[in-house]
């Protein structure tokens, strides 16, 4: 295993981005979407998530540890690349650059978002519709959240595409082209879900 450490870390990074981090992202965006049905509906859904059994175990092993590994190893990957999209102006090369760029933007957004909500909750604040309404009443924070959410859904959708390549699922150029279309669809769908939820608080 010693010689294979990089292979193991890279594959683990790729896997964790989808399972569980990607699945958590979808679940999170879906729960947020309750906000479009009003404050009570959102508060009920948020309270249900809060009162899940083994909450801390779930948070640590499904969210924080996988996210931490994905983020730290991702920073290393992003900064070992020498981006060259100006010289090699190809679609996939731009996706390569954007995947690294949105990874960093998403990390900044997620750190701030966790600090402002989950850490605030740990210090005694209540996470509910009012909290988000207060945060998003600031136009700067509104834009920060919109950019953060779109960057996250892009990183996830494009990451799904490269997950399929990295694990040897999509090998032929045709399967890679079709999975490009599918992941663009996922990006658009998740962005709509995320942004509708944001505007429900405004």
């Amino acid at each position, binding site marked *: 295993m010693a010689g294979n450490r990089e292979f193991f870390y890279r594959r683990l990074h790729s896997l964790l981005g989808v399972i569980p981090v990607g699945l958590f992202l979808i679940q999170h965006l879906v729960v947020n979407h309750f906000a479009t049905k009003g404050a009570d509906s959102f508060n009920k859904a948020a309270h249900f998530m809060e009162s899940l059994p083994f909450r801390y175990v779930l948070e640590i092993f499904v969210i924080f540890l996988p996210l931490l590994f994905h983020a730290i190893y991702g920073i290393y990957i992003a900064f070992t690349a020498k981006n060259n999209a100006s010289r090699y102006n190809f679609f996939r090369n731009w996706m390569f650059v954007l995947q690294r760029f949105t990874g960093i933007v998403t990390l900044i957004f997620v750190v701030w978002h966790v600090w402002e909500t989950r850490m605030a909750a740990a210090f005694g604040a209540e996470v509910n519709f009012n909290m988000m309404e207060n945060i998003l009443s600031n136009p700067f924070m509104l834009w920060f959240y919109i950019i953060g959410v779109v960057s996250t859904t892009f990183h996830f959708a494009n990451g799904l595409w490269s997950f399929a390549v990295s694990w*040897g699922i999509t090998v*032929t*150029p045709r399967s890679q082209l079709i999975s490009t279309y599918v992941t663009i669809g996922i990006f658009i769908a998740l962005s709509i879900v995320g942004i509708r939820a944001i505007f429900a608080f405004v």
Partner: protein
Amino acid sequence: MAENSTVHFIISRQDSPDSEPYQEEFHVPYRPNMNVISALMEIRRNPVNAEGKETSPITWDMNCLEEVCGACSMIINGKPRQSCSAIVDQLEQPIRLEPMRTFPVVRDLQVDRSRMFDSLKKVKAWIPIDGTYDLGPGPRMPEVKRQWAYELSKCMTCGVCLEACPNVNSKSNFIGPAPLSQVRLFNAHPTGEMNKAERLNAIMEDGGLTNCGNSQNCVQSCPKGIPLTTSIAALNRDTTLQSFKNFFGSDQV
């Protein structure tokens, strides 16, 4: 073009591996059908730069002059390619020549591509056929498989795919697309397949396959049209299975 009596070149030069690069301009007399190499030969014959000053001839690598050896690769107007098949009539002027700086520059346009040959050794890009007795003929190869494997055998180790790859740089030890595709070639061969696991384990080491970031510049840039990204994705599948065999399985191959 015919009315232009000279061709304008801007060439990136470097006197030694450690010295600073600088640019020098040249006006080379135009001849019909000339390529970048014939222009460099003309400069070598008469090493006078655009200011009319005598200078040292330019150093570059070349060998076959028909785009099968890969030695004369350089960056021509921003794109890595072979200078033998770079026809002056088809290039925008001024023609800018630079060395492929992904590799250590020896002098001027000449680079040292030994790292590619080291990588081929690392991934065992050959088929062991020697034994202490006559091993007899190997298994036959299906014709259909031979046809697609032939495409992979066109690789001339020119280094263009490494130059185009954003993940092959001084911060990473990625071996690059070319040696990876060779693993697929030799694993496709019925005799080479007997050492499949050895090659897969070699590309699962540091600097190996997983360093690919799927920018797919390699397949866009390869002068031989080798399906490099298909090779990489196929190897991703093979190494996934190999890693399961290594961890959960018991047989060694």
